[in-house]
C-alpha cells in the first residue's frame, strides 16, 4: 500500500478539495475581471480533479484518473473558447468588466 493511503485519511483530501472549491466560488462571485473569473473556474475544476485522483488511488480504481483526464480535456477546450469569446467582448465594449454585460433583462 502506498504510504499516503496509510497515513492520510481520505477525509483530509475531501476537506482540502472542498476548501479549494469554495475559494474558487468566492473568486467567481467577487471578481469583476472576466479573465480572473475564468481562472477561478479553472481552480474549481482542479479541486475536483484532485479529489477524483485521490479517490482513485484510495480505491485502487483507474476510472477516477480516466475521469480526471477527460475533465482536463474539457477544461482546456473551454478555456480556449472562453478566452476567444472574451477577446470578442473586449473588442465590442473595450473592457473586460463583466458588470457591463447587462443587456439580457426585461
Amino acid at each position, binding site marked *: 500500500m502506498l504510504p499516503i493511503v496509510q497515513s492520510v485519511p481520505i477525509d483530509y483530501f475531501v476537506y482540502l478539495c472542498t476548501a479549494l472549491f469554495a475559494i474558487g*466560488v468566492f473568486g*467567481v*462571485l467577487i471578481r*469583476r475581471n472576466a479573465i480572473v473569473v475564468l481562472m477561478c473556474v479553472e481552480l474549481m475544476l482542479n479541486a475536483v480533479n484532485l479529489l477524483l485522483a485521490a479517490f482513485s488511488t484510495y480505491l485502487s480504481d483507474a476510472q477516477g484518473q480516466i475521469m480526471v483526464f477527460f475533465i482536463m480535456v474539457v477544461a482546456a477546450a473551454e478555456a480556449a473558447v472562453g478566452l476567444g469569446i472574451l477577446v470578442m467582448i473586449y473588442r465590442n465594449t473595450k473592457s473586460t468588466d*463583466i*458588470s457591463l*454585460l*447587462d*443587456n*439580457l*433583462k*426585461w
Partner: protein
Amino acid sequence: MQTLIPLIPFLPLIGFAVNGLFGGRMPKSVSGWIGSGSVLLSFLLSVMAFMEVSATHAPIRSEVYPFMSVGSLHIGFGFLVDALSAWMMLIVTGIGFLIHVYSMGYMHDDDGFSRFFAYLNLFIFSMLLLVMGDNFLMLFFGWEGVGLCSYLLIGFWYTNRDYNLAANKAFIMNRIGDLGLLLGMFLIFHTFGSLQYETVFKHLAENPVETGVITSICLLLFIGAIGKSAQIPLYTWLPDAMAGPTPVSALIHAATMVTAGIYLVARCNGLFSLSHEALQVVAVVGMATSVLAALIGLRQNDIKKVLAYSTVSQLGLMFVALGMGAYASAMFHVTTHAFFKALLFLGAGSVIHAMGGEQDIRNMGGLRKHLPVTFWVFLAGTLAISGVPVLSGFFSKDEILAHTFDHGGPIWWALASFSSLLTAVYMGRLLFLTFYGSFRGTHEQAHHLHESPATMTIPLIILAILSIAGGLLNLPHFMHLEPSQWLAHWLAGSDANGQAVVPMTEVHILPSTEWMLMGVASVVAIVALAYTYMVYTKPQNVPAPDEQLSGWGKILAGKFYVDELYDTLFVRPTEAFSKTLHYYVDVWAIDGVVEGVGKGFQTLGATFRRLQNGNIEYYLIGMVAGGIGLLLTYFL
C-alpha cells in the same frame, strides 16, 4: 263534452299566439275578430259545459297531462268544471267577449292594436286556468298568469314612464300577496298530502285537522287574496292601474282578475268555515277597506280613479260577505258587480273617447245632450251600484247587508250601510258632474264630442240590460217571488264527494226585519242620489282645482297619504339597503376580490421581474445559492 273542456282555455291561447305572431301583418278588423271570436267560442263552450253540469248534477273532470310526479306529490294539468267554476267561466268569457268587441272600437286608432288583443286573449286564458283548474297549482298558474297580463296591459302604452311604474307597482304588490298564497299551498300539501281540491276537501270532511293549522292555511290564502283583490294593505296598485287602457280597467280590474281572491275564498269555503278567527280577519279587513276606499272616492276628480276606488270598496264588501260565511251572496255580488262595474268603466271609456282623452270630471259637464246612449247606460250603472230598488245591485247588496245584520250584529250592519251610503254619494257626484250642468271643457273638445260607434255602444247596452235585470238571479226568500235564490241553489250543487260546492247559508231574521232593512237601504240610496243631484248640478259646487284644497278635502283627495307612507316605510329603506349592498358587497367585496386577484398577480409579476436585472454577479450568486439549496434538500 269532457274532451271539449280543454278547448275552453286553449282557444284564447291560440288567439294569443296568432295575434302575437302575425298580428302586425293582418288588417285590424281581422286581428280584432280573431281575438273576440276565440273568446266567443269559449263562451259558447262554457254554456254547453254549464248545461251539462246542470243536467247531470255532477262536475265534469278532464285530465289533460300529468304534470309533475315527485315523491308523494302528484300534480296533473287537469280541469274541474263544477258549479262554482262553471259560473265563473260564464262570467269571464261572457263579459270578456263584450269587452273584446268594445275594444275593437275603442283601440281602433292605436298602433298596438293586435298586441292589445294578444294580451287580452292571454289574460282570458290565464283567468280560465285559474277558475277551471282542479288543483291549487293550476290556480297558482292562472294567478300568476293574470298578474303578468295585468302588468303587460297596464303598461300597454310603454313609452310613458309613469305607466310603466304603475305596472311595476301592480305586479310587485301582487307578488307580496302571492308569497302568502304559496306558503298556504305548502301548508296545505304538508297537512293533506295533496293539492287536488277533491282530495283536500274529502280529507277535511273525514279526518279532523287541528284548528291552528286550518287558521294558518286560511290566513295565508287570504294574504294572497288581499294582494290580488286589492284589500288593505295591498290596495294602492289598483287606482294606479288606471294607467292602462279603459277596456283593461273594465275587464281586469273590475270584473275578473280582482275577483280571483273572492273565488279563492269561495272555493276553500270548507277550510274557512272551520276557522272562526280567519273569517273574523276576512270580515274586518273587508270592512275597513270598504269604508276607507269609499271615503277616498268622495274627493277624486279623475273618472277612472273614482271607479277604481269604488271597485276596491265593493270588493271589501264582498269580503265582508265571505267573512260572514255568506259565500253564495259574495258570488252573487261578484256577478252583479261584474255587470255594472264593467258597464261603468266602458261608459267612462266612451266619455273619454268622446272628450279626446280628457279624464278630469272638472272639465266635463252637460254631456248627456251630446252622448245620449252613454248617458242612459251610465245612469243605469250608477243606479245599480247605488242599490236603487229593483236593479241588480239592490238585491245583491241587500243580501250582504242582511247577512251582516244576522251574523255580525247591528254595528257591522251600520258600517256596511255607511259604505253603501258613501257609494251612492260618490257615484252620484260622478254622474252629475259629468253629465249634468254646463260644459266646462275647451272649444276643441266641444267640437269633438260625438257618440261612440256601434261596436262600443252595443256591449254597453247589453251590460246595461244585465245590470238592470241581474237581480233576478238570486231573489231573496222572504219576497216569495219565483225563482228565489236560484244562484245560491246552483252554487250549492254537489261536487265529487256529494257535498255542496258552495253551501247555502240561511239568514235567521224575521221577514219583517228583512223588509225594514231593505226599506232603510233603499231610502238611504235614493236620498243620497237626490242630495248629490241638488249639490253637484250647481256650477259653484264643481270641485276646486288641487291647489285650493284644504282640511278634510285635502286629506281625502290625497288618498289619506297611504302611498307616501308606503314610500317612506318600505320603498326608501329598500332603496337605501340596496345602495348599501351595492357599495359593500358588489363594489367593495366582489369587485375588490376580482380586481384584487388581477392586481395581486400584477404586483407579483412586478416583484419577480426585478430578479432579471441583467446583473451578472447577481445571477452568479443566485446560481450558487440555488446549488446550496439543492444540496441541502438532498442531504437533509
